[in-house]
């Protein structure tokens, strides 16, 4: 009986996931890195990839290709977005300036899910693929 309930609830959970349509127009991903001397901010949504390479500089805006966006969404689906604020940085080199301070922020339907700071180059493993994907999209465009 217990098992049946478990199976049923799993099915239910699964259904609720597939049924709820994610509004991809309402998703924005933002990755920021900073040291004392450098700053970089990448913002990606379905339409645009915007990059700021210096404090106070105007963003460099490019079109986000459908292939890139779809790939990014595929990766995003593997991430428990709500849990992003709770993820732990695996290393702390930024404490002594040995790494840039990195932050990941995902906005969905106006709600913001922001990570705690982590070392650029060594994100929490749950978001490694996502960050890598964002960086590779920007690099491709540049």
């Amino acid at each position, binding site marked *: 009986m217990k098992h049946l309930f478990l199976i049923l609830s799993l099915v239910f959970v699964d259904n609720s996931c597939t049924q709820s349509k994610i509004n991809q127009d309402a998703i924005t991903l933002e990755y920021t890195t900073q*040291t004392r001397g*450098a*700053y970089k901010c990448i913002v990606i949504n379905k339409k645009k990839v915007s990059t700021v390479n210096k404090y106070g500089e105007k963003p460099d805006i490019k079109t986000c290709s459908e292939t890139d966006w779809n790939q990014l969404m595929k990766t995003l689906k593997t991430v428990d977005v709500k849990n992003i604020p709770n993820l732990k940085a695996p290393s702390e080199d930024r404490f*002594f*300036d040995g790494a840039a301070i990195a932050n990941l922020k995902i906005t969905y339907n106006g709600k913001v899910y922001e990570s*705690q700071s982590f070392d650029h180059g060594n994100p929490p493993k749950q978001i490694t693929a996502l960050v890598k994907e964002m960086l590779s999209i920007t690099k491709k465009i540049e």
Partner: protein
Amino acid sequence: MKKVFLSMAAVAFLFAACSDDSKEAIVEEQNIDMSDFYVYTDSNDDLASKENKGKGNSKFCYAMENLNRQLNQNPGLEKKMYDVEYHTRKFLAGKGKPPKGGGGSGGGSGDTDVDVLPIQDNLGIINIPVYIHIVYPDANSISTSQINSQMATLNADFRDINTNLLPSGTTFANDATDAGFSFSLAGTFRHNDSRSSWGTNDAIKSAYPPITPETHLNIWVCEIGGGILGYAQFPGGNSSTDGVVLGGNYFGNTSGAYGLGRTATHEVGHYFNLRHIWGDGRCNRDDFVADTPKSDRSNGGCPTFPTTHCKSADMTMNYMDYTYDSCMYMFTDGQRNRMRAIFAPGGARSSMIGS
């Protein structure tokens, strides 16, 4: 077999480390509260939750929590850093300072001005002999006068109070301090090396090892890359990588926003055990210094006063923030005490005294 032996050794070490800790904890329990100390963020949250459950339960086996992961890359480092922190707090507590690291506003309204007094440690002006390693394709590209300007800046910044530079309206005048350090150039080593960027993984220190790091501050000047102006190593780390690495464009008097040699001041601050002034985290994360305000972020550029985060004005003019060279000009008494504690008997850098 080797693996089995290693893991057994690890377990043995772990037990030894733990029992040592708990013994110490019993003896010093009333005095030294280590519950807010963190090296790695995950351990901190464990500790924080323990702390919330009640002060009496805050005894913990620190070594055990992270030892497994740490053993892989850096055996014993975290334990060493814990010991450095423990010694610092014990020393400061012995001098009548509050044992807790404490946040600037101590959980209060945020407007409370915490004033820490400079402790009498009988160490006088602590002189730090410095070896400088210049590593560039043309090692003469960093001139002797550039080196001298860097030494002058270190000597000024660790002595000058600079209260005349504070904007009106701050409560920081009573915090600004004469840290009481001097720096003397003990030798310069020039190495012609064609490598164009050295990164932050200490490659430069393997290529050009530090000279007597037990008694000398070693500074490497090279192209780091990756937007990094300089990086340091906290006390308690491996002596083969001990010291500070600085990019040549930010070493001594150069040009631009980071052209006054204060990258070195900031990095030597880390080398003397200071954390970033915002505590490298959110409002509840502390820099273990009582007279610096709480903040949840670094400040860049040249901020106007007040720049408010976590309900109080940030001390953006502190050397341990991320502001421009010309806009940072103070350490606090609490930072002074914390830096000097590692030079007290038993401290991580006490071997530098009298050298």
